[in-house]
């Protein structure tokens, strides 16, 4: 178990991440990630296990740099992707936060995310729920940042589409 201060700062980072996604504060969201951060959403295999090796198996999303995440943001923000025109309204709820100390000042944070998504154009709502695992590490400025985020989407029979901000 991590100490109270670590738990507090880790939880706060996760809540902040959720807030930035829900308010479409894309730049602030991106700034929470380290330059070479991994953002990974595995798929589920028929045997009931999620894929575990992104270099040999398929993922729904696998980004291994902030630049790649920025492409996703630019696409949504461009107003040219009809799948996000207009962008969905979302409410990310993060709970069951458990913080463990990992190697070299890093924190491993497990949590449950429930994301309510409202599709304005279709006047339709969906819920996605996932198990999340963040690895947090102090960046150059000493602030805690996301070194990796793995999001295991539990309801992966996907209506129409998902994106980094709807899950």
């Amino acid at each position, binding site marked *: 178990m991590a100490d109270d201060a670590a738990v507090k700062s880790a939880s706060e980072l996760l809540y902040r991440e959720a807030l930035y996604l829900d308010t479409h504060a894309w730049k602030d969201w991106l700034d929470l990630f380290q330059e070479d951060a991994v953002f990974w959403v595995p798929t589920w295999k028929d*045997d009931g296990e999620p894929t575990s090796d992104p270099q*040999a*198996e*398929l993922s729904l999303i696998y980004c291994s740099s902030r630049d790649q995440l920025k492409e996703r943001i630019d696409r949504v923000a461009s107003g040219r992707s009809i799948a996000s025109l207009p962008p969905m309204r979302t409410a990310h709820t993060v709970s069951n936060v458990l913080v463990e100390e990992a190697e070299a000042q890093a924190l491993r944070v497990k949590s449950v995310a429930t994301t309510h998504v409202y599709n304005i154009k279709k006047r339709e709502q969906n819920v996605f729920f996932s198990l999340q695992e963040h690895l947090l590490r102090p960046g150059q400025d000493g602030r805690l940042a996301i070194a990796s985020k793995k999001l295991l989407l539990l309801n992966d029979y*996907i209506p*129409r*589409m998902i994106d980094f901000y709807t899950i």
Partner: protein
Amino acid sequence: MTPQDIEALVDDRPADGMFRVHRSAVREKAIFDLEMEHIFESSWVFLGLDCQLPEKHTYFSTYIGRQPVVVSRTADDKIVCFVNSCTHRGAVVCHRDSGKARHHACQYHGWVFDSAGRCVDIKGQKEGAYTDAFLREDHDLRKVRVGNYRGFLFGSLKEDVPPIEEHLGDIKTFLDLMFDQSPDGLEIVPGPVRFTYKGNWKLQIENGTDPYHFTSTHTSYIQILTKRTKSNSAALTSSIYQKFDENSILRGAFTFPNGHAALWGETPSSESRPIALNFDAVAKRVGGPRARWMLHTRNVSVFPNVQFAENAALQMRIIRPIDVDRTEMVTYCLAPRGESREARVARIRQYEDFFNPSGFATPDDTTAYEDCQDGNRNDALEWHQGYMRGMAAVRPGADEFARELGITPLTSIYGPFSLGDETVFHQTYRYWRDKIASGMRAKRCQRELEGV
């Protein structure tokens, strides 16, 4: 609804330069039911690949039209298909997407079937006071006819269908162009992806060979590529569409009997193709022209339910119509067996980049299908005008590109990418119309015969 009503849905007058499809084709439940009966449940439907059955007693479950089926490798190493519905009272017997089992026991009253679908145990048969008439019945799960072309597995609920090779015809060449990229054939990259959309299944059939939408539906993707080319960052995924220019790239299409169609194009950045890493070896094995065709983009539609898109990467998509306005897509990343790790990683990243309901292109396609379904709710406009690009350029039979491949399509067309041909849909809709109408007529004859 009569056969004439179905025929009237396709306004097919090539001599007048006219080809239209009626909007009710994507909207009417009665038409959907006829499609299920006379197309999906009366002819060959794609099931999956034989690599999904790697050893004895392995199986996967899928659908033929509305009917759940199981495809299984038996104790004597034969691939069989049977209806996934218990002979006793109809419960689905096999509940997993895939797995390995010598026996499938029905969870309701416990009848047991082997991996060939044969009934091997009826619980309490002795005590059951059955009549001789019951004992004389066939208790096995109903067999489905299987066709296997180089590991591409098809099933037909109707026994009386032509051999699979004949049904596929020259579209086989396009299956070969995928299969022969490795001497050992194809495999599935682990991790299927399933998604649904609120639209008719034919919207996906059309989009799969629709070159016209790319520059408008995928502008956000093209924009990303332009930025990637400028930034030249190694951290970003390389795409075969980098250097895309719609005026300099050649694109063509072929149509075939039985509703099949293929779209091909020059690849803007063919050096980004995973097989480019291994091109010389491939060319030596299959010959230069075939190897070049492997570098081309190819979008292949095997009517009615599977498409293979080898553009950004190689995708297999199985289309399952659920209702007239609801469709399930089961999608797979395919790869040549034994490719290098470098090629495999590039392939997977390119696949995720473009495809997937979470990629940079597919969600925009899917959204467009739903927009079409929404816009088609009424008959205020009767006809779609979306089938006439290319009509003044298409020609019957083979062009020089078809001859290079050694195929004889029903029609051929080529031109710059911006031609955005739509004649590629014509044979599909003709087959669709004729198959339903002839099925309805045959059924009526049958009824009349039985009536006398």
